[in-house]
């Protein structure tokens, strides 16, 4: 097998998926067999100018609130206002208190009062 169960576990951890023992074994087997079919990609000669995953056909990315560059006047509904939320977040969020989304305390966070913390 090209993909080991250990590798599947590492990948599953990155993707925040929990796999039961049998599931991990089955995934390792499936992925090994799928990846075997991918080896033909090695025959492709590399092209130097790869810039993006998007098929690049028409100019550059369109810019919000801009007509000078990047293609095209901001036509219909050009965004000057944010898209409104037609349902309150309190009805969408699984746990919502005092206008805040709530999750169980992050591991390793002491909860230093008054010190908001951002992403690492």
């Amino acid at each position, binding site marked *: 097998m090209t993909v080991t169960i250990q590798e599947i576990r590492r990948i599953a951890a*990155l993707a*925040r998926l929990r796999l039961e023992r049998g599931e991990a074994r089955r995934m390792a087997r499936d992925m090994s067999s799928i990846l075997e079919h991918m080896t033909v990609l090695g025959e492709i000669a590399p092209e130097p100018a790869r*810039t*993006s*995953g*998007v098929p*690049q056909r028409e*100019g*550059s*990315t*369109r*810019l*919000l*609130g*801009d007509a*000078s*560059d*990047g293609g095209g006047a901001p036509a219909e509904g050009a*965004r*000057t*206002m*944010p*898209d*409104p*939320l037609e349902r309150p*977040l309190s009805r969408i969020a699984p746990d919502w*208190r*005092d*206008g*805040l*989304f*709530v*999750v*169980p*305390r*992050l591991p390793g*966070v*002491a*909860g*230093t*009062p*008054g*010190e*908001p*913390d*951002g*992403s*690492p």
Partner: protein
Amino acid sequence: MKDSPLEAVIGLEVHVQLDTGRKLFCADSTAFGAPPNTAVCPVCLGLPGALPVLDAGAVDLALRAALALECTIHPISVFARKNYFYPDLPKGYQISQFERPLATRGAVELDNGRRVRIRRVHMEEDAGKSLHDRFASATAVDLNRTGTPLIEIVSEPDLRSPGEARSCLQHLKRLMEYLGISDCNMEEGNLRVDANVSLRKRGSERLEASTEVKNLNSFSAVEKALGVEIKRQTRIRAEGGAVTRQTLLWDAAGGNVRVMRDKEDSQDYRYFPDPDLPPLVLSAARVASLRAGLGELPRAKHERFRRQYGLPAYDADVLTSSRPLADYYEAVVACGRQPKTVSNWVMGPVLKTVKRGIADLSSPGLAPGRLAELLVLVDEGTLSATAAKTVLAGMARTGDPPGVIVRREGLMQVREDQVLARWVTDVVTAHPEEVARYRDGETRLLGFLMGQVMRASGRKADPRRVNQLLRAALDADAG
């Protein structure tokens, strides 16, 4: 460090919030202090199906910063996804630039003349805020900040001391403020600094394991934390140990650094080009027009102000801290007023008025021509300096020209000898004791008597002439 065989090798990573007023990929406001989760929309909430669209204003500000840092601007740059899970990262990835940033290879020059190379300048979106102290055993998430436009400026490890790092940061801050790119408010997190530090044998070019110090949210934190970390690394090496690659958190209260995570188990961010955003293609014309709009940079302007106007360094510093201020100063001088006088007035009463929020530099009452008119009145002796300050306040408040206010409030300086002489005589008569002591040689009492005359005149008397008349009166009767 001076005599040590080791030298510090420091690089900075600076995040600067762009002052566009709106988010990078949606139209929400970035104003500080909105109630939590109110400045949000499907895009920055990462709702299913929502898509980012790049804000043109942010691109212009980022380009301006890159140009001011003498960078090479790349005609094509690519937004990538940095994938990781965190509650305040709604999409599960941050949109940033990775392999192909907006700009690379720039430089800034420090006050000591050293050039610090800039490795890259790229655009990215900010994450939200996790609040750990709000609820017991739970973390609360506010996504107002999510999607706020940032640039990250990465320097080469060209800094050799904490002082240099501080100076470099000050320089960057000044540049961003001057160009209107960011207000760089460090308390609100609009300027955030991480530093990479390592030590090496003086003169060596070898790259040593470095640590990254985070949470440097003031200039003094940068200087102090780097000092502490350099000492820590010096001690480790003196004890024969090896510095390991780590991410450290500066604890300002404790005055020390603590380990946040080991770099060895660094995350696998799985960067790849964001398929929702085609490459950012910049036309040469757009870049050229921004370059032209950049004008003279603060450093050059500072030097010119000192040379051309003969200003002290302090005055030049203050006056070139923002472009509107520098332009204002020059406009007043251009009306024919003496540069140092104008500097005193602008740095003093004018800025005070602006800071109090009574008016700003573009208010009609403070128009450069108006200020010049006011200064003419002072120079001519029509107005006393004190009265002129009152007039300035009136100009700022009402927008009326100085002449009108002077007439309306009767602030015209009194210079007729007849009138002045009467006030002088009155004061001399009313203070026989002080007059006698003055005549006995206690000449400093002249100031007191002057003050009495000015007060009697309602501060309208021409002080120069009063001084002459008073002296004459005191000395004459003595003879």
